[in-house]
């Protein structure tokens, strides 16, 4: 029975070819080209910035406090005399590291749980959905702050916290997407062939839900960045002297009447990254033929 050949399982090379086509489609749209360029730029910058910045990010100079842009300091200095350009260039490293690790984890666990319960259904599924609803009805900041205040603000706390809470809405998305697929003939065919649940999930459901999960992952990423930098801004994220955009904006806010570049530089950097991710997600959704449904950030 299990030796029946399955003609529809695509080979590896076809997967590669398909995603190559999707990438070309994304790049052919203006939003995708601009968005992906911004994202790639920020990721590369985060990796190479320690070697290209002009100054030490924590070098203070009392004689240079809150100076405006000059030949030596292109974007001026902050309230401790540190170079704003250096700190802006390095300010995304922590954010990209934390959200870059947490996003795949969140999409993976939320996606798998959603697919499984979308396929199985039943009482447990009903209960799970009520729990998901309950979690979503609490503001994100409350959920995260309670954990962060208790366990500290290090990366080892932030990554699991973000990965856990941002995986919850993914459950719902994956479950809904699975419901659409389960009703189709090839899933019934797989059932008739006698495949087990795990095989059906791996062979039939996962490849079909993957598109939705990719777009959802891009959106989660941007909301995680938003949450991460908001936490930094509120003083619950990255601890000084690590350069971080949220923290820099919070620090420079008090002096923005006479040193606006200290605020504007991190504002531009953070906004361009988040907008880049959103533009890419939009183009990706269109390239995959998905209508990106209207959702509020959760």
């Amino acid at each position, binding site marked *: 029975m299990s030796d029946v050949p399955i003609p529809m399982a695509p080979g590896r090379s076809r997967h590669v070819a398909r995603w190559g086509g999707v990438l070309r489609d994304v790049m052919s749209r203006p939003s995708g080209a601009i968005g992906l360029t911004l994202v790639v730029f920020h990721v590369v910058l985060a990796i190479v910035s320690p070697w290209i910045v002009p100054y030490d990010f924590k070098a203070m100079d009392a004689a240079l406090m809150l100076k405006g842009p000059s030949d030596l300091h292109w974007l001026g200095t902050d309230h401790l005399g540190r170079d704003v350009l250096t700190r802006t260039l390095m300010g995304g490293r922590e954010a990209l590291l934390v959200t870059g690790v947490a996003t795949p984890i969140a999409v993976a666990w939320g996606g798998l749980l959603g697919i499984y319960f979308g396929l199985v259904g039943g009482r447990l599924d009903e209960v799970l959905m*009520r*729990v998901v*609803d*309950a*979690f979503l*009805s*609490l*503001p*994100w*900041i*409350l959920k995260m*702050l*309670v954990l962060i*205040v*208790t366990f500290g603000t290090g990366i080892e706390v932030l990554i699991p916290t973000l990965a856990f809470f941002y995986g919850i809405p993914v459950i719902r998305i994956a479950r809904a997407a699975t419901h659409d697929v389960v009703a189709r003939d090839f899933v019934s065919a797989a059932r008739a062939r006698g495949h087990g649940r795990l095989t059906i999930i791996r062979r039939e459901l996962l490849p079909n839900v993957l598109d939705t999960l990719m777009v959802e992952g891009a959106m989660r990423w*941007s909301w995680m960045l*938003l949450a991460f*930098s*908001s936490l930094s*801004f*509120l003083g619950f994220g990255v601890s000084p002297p690590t350069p971080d955009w*949220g923290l820099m*904006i*919070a620090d420079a*806010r008090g002096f*923005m*009447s006479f040193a*606006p570049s200290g*605020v*504007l530089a991190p*504002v531009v950097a*953070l*906004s361009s990254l*988040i*907008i880049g991710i*959103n*533009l890419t997600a*939009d183009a990706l959704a269109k390239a995959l033929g998905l209508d990106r449904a*209207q*959702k*509020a*950030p*959760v």
Partner: protein
Amino acid sequence: MLRMLLRRLFLGAVTVVIVSVIIFAGVEILPGDACTAFLEREAQGRLLENCREAQGLNRSAAERYIDWAASALRGDLGVSANGGVSIAELVGNRLGNSLLLAACALALGVPLAIFLGVVTGLWRDRWVDLVFSTGAIFAMTIPEFVSATLLILVFSVWLGWLPGIVLTPADAPVAEFFPEILLPVIVLAMVMTAHILRMVRSSVIEVMAGDYVQMATLKGVPYWRIVFRHALPNALLPAINVVALTIAWLLGGVVVIEVVFNYPGLGRMMIDAISDRDLPVVQAIALIVATVYVGVNLTADLMTMVLNPRLRTHYMRQR
């Protein structure tokens, strides 16, 4: 119809109960309790025992949960760990202030969003559409604290038109919050407008491409009559749910904005309570916010059903 209504109410109530369990359990698994927080360094031996005895903390978790939930149902939210003030009293003013902020933002944002959504939907891909749709992406993706900081920089620091910080005390009458409340309202309304605008735009586009609109056009019905009589009533229905979702978002996003503008609302109170580890206050605020969230979503669902005959009959047939 009645059975469906009762079913929705029941599911909403179940969600609130689960939330209360999550909140209680969440606070329960945190290390330390009200007594260790209150006694700080002296929290050991007899002193700790006596305190726990007095607070009823040595009973089982289930007993305490039932006690807490029952008094919350009666409107008694307990007393705060710091100072022992009644939480209901503490929360009252703050909740009112947050609702004032939300109401102003809704009053400004919703009509604007519907107007702009219809305009951008009808003139799709023209310059109005490009300008506002791009603007909407910016407004909804940039973090609230960033747009708030930028608006303060422009309108308060550079132009000096509006105050950039709220100095009015929490218990001041509503009128005293003006004009200080304007900048936070503008930030909130901006984000809300962006979300609702995109929804309205896409549903206007969808409806205008529908068969009955084409039919009406072929019959020779004037364009604006088609728009107002045939298309808009259908296009605006989905907006109700988005408005509900944005209200729910308001409850979370408003925290950051209240901190940025020093606004004395529920959100800032929540941050303070979390920093002070005032757990009873955190529990109470979480419960209030979650209940409001469930209530708003429920209302939106019911409104959509009442206003949309197709959904209504669909549910009646299901029964």
